[in-house]
């Protein structure tokens, strides 16, 4: 198992290096740089600024310098915010994005999975039809529609919740709900189809023939088998949601990582773009590794290389 993890970690570093390189090249291929907009700056000052941030070095030099920093977990200074580093951004933004993300994922699983199970058990009955209709709406309506709608109803009309910003638990509710809707709908649809597949299996017939209650059949025999696709989906979902979601953070004015990311792209804040991309990439790779290890625990047929029985 240790060997397997070591291999995976090594592969992850290779992937991250490729990611860094490609992002670096693409970023520099976009016309314009971090300071091109400040037109009235005299040429001498401009040259000074470029020298300060090593932008006058040849590209390969900049690339090697940057890699050197990444290896030391130093993602460099922001080109746009004086005196702030990309590490600062992550330290500040990630906890906010992660808190919002974890709450929405818990919310979406806590509702989506049971809903999927129930609609599978009541296949083609009204419970199933209603929940699947709602799920389709959840999948197809984008969050930039849901979020203002929630805001309008609960903040503006009913005045139950504060409309935006971050800080108190009441400010978490709306963005968390808006963010949870898509994964919730996806979870319920995944769980439903997976359960339908599992409950037609022979071992479910065996379990019934043993005289087990419907609850025991569902819980012990079906759910554990049906939960695999959920785990698969969970890995990238956690990485995507915890590292920030631009739209929700923008609408609710939440100082998270997603907003920072998009802002940095618009402003050609080279180090921030690179740094956040690497952070997201590393997180995604980590989550995929965690998912693969969880598989091994959920399904004994999946042997994690090197594990002896």
């Amino acid at each position: 198992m240790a060997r397997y993890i070591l291999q995976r970690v090594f592969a992850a570093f290779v992937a991250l290096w490729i990611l860094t390189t490609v992002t670096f090249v693409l970023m520099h291929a976009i016309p314009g740089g971090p300071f091109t907009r400040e037109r009235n700056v005299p040429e001498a000052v401009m040259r000074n600024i470029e020298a300060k941030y090593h932008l006058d070095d040849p590209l390969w030099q900049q690339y090697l310098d940057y890699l050197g920093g990444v290896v030391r977990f130093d993602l460099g200074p922001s080109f746009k915010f004086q005196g702030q580093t990309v590490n600062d951004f992550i330290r500040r933004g990630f906890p906010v994005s992660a808190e919002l993300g974890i709450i929405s994922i818990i919310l979406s699983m806590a509702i989506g999975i049971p809903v999927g199970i129930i609609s599978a058990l009541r296949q083609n009955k009204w419970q199933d039809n209603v929940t699947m209709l709602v799920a389709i709406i959840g999948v197809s309506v984008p969050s930039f529609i849901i979020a203002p709608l929630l805001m309008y109803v609960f903040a503006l009309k009913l005045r139950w919740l504060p409309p935006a910003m971050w800080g108190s638990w009441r400010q978490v509710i709306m963005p968390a709900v808006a963010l949870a809707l898509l994964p919730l709908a996806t979870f319920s649809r995944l769980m439903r189809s997976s359960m339908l597949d599992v409950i037609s299996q022979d071992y479910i017939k065996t379990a019934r023939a043993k005289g087990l209650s419907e609850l025991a059949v569902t819980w012990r025999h079906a759910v554990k088998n049906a939960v695999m696709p959920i785990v698969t989906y969970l890995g990238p979902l956690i990485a995507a949601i915890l590292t920030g979601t631009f739209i929700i953070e923008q609408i609710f004015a939440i100082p998270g990582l997603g907003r920072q990311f998009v802002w940095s792209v618009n402003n050609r804040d080279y180090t921030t773009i690179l740094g956040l991309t690497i952070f997201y990439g590393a997180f995604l790779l980590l989550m995929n590794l965690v998912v693969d290890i969880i598989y091994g625990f959920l399904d004994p047929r999946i042997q994690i290389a090197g594990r002896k029985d």
Partner: protein
Amino acid sequence: MDNLLRVRDLKTSFFTYAGEVRAVDGVNFDVAGGEAVAIVGESGCGKSVTAMSLLRLIPEPGKVLAGSVELAGRDLVKLKEREMRHVRGNDISMVFQDPMTSLNPVLTIGTQLMEAIRQHQKVEKDKARARAIETLEMVKIPSADKRLAQYPHQLSGGMRQRVMIAMALSCHPKLVICDEPTTSLDVTIQAQIIELLKDLKKATGMSIILITHNLGVVAGLATRVIVMYAGKIVEYGPVNEIYGIPQHPYTWGLLRSVPRLDAAEKRRLVPIYGQPPDLLKPPVGCRFNPRCDHAMKICREQEPPFVPVNGNGQHHVACWLQHPAAPAVAGFKKGVPA
């Protein structure tokens, strides 16, 4: 003979979009205590649905419509679902066809064995464990205590079927239904499993309903045979009479399609031509008439009644050829096959 199980006029249908499929259409039979009865017939003739009807485990959109299933005098059809659950696995248990798919891949053998025991006997975990080991030893699984922690994929097909049998026996059932217990196993393992079932029957005094299309398996285990065709019983009797003096043309067909090592000369296997009928619209009269070599006019018009064969009151057949007015047809043993 005191009957453990009395099935009377059992009717099970599936209500599909196309209409009502009468999978089991008025079936009667008895099983005595300690007896092994085989139900034979080709795929889709209603054998398995009959078995599942006994346990009331017919999947949607199927339904047991009529009839009674009396187990030791208690009509299972009338029981509440909760009471029925106590019958399943406890009074009647089941061994399914494919041990590769009938065991839950993510639960250990131990969990799957012990949950049935704990469900019905309300015993402590260590007692259930002891019972689980005991049943695994009964089905001759070596190092039984170590198996409890193993998962199904770590066992061979034959071992898994032994586990299935152990599971079925764990609560001392009165009746075990074996639905094609050997079909997915290779031939040497088949013989072992049949031998095992025979020993277990002797040791525990349980009754067995053996569902199969393998007539060799029948001969090894059962004392009586019920031949089903298209949801109905067409012939039943003691095993030696079904093999020795079969009366129904369908039974002849089944027997002719079995290869024999002891045949005096080489002969071709004769299949039963055609397909089993569409049970949405079963043929009028005798259901076998479209495929029967000896079908007469009446076979296409009226359903044949059961008539006794051989005068011992045990062997019956539903065929118009038995009617005094029917022309003499050379029977199975009188030279028609070969």
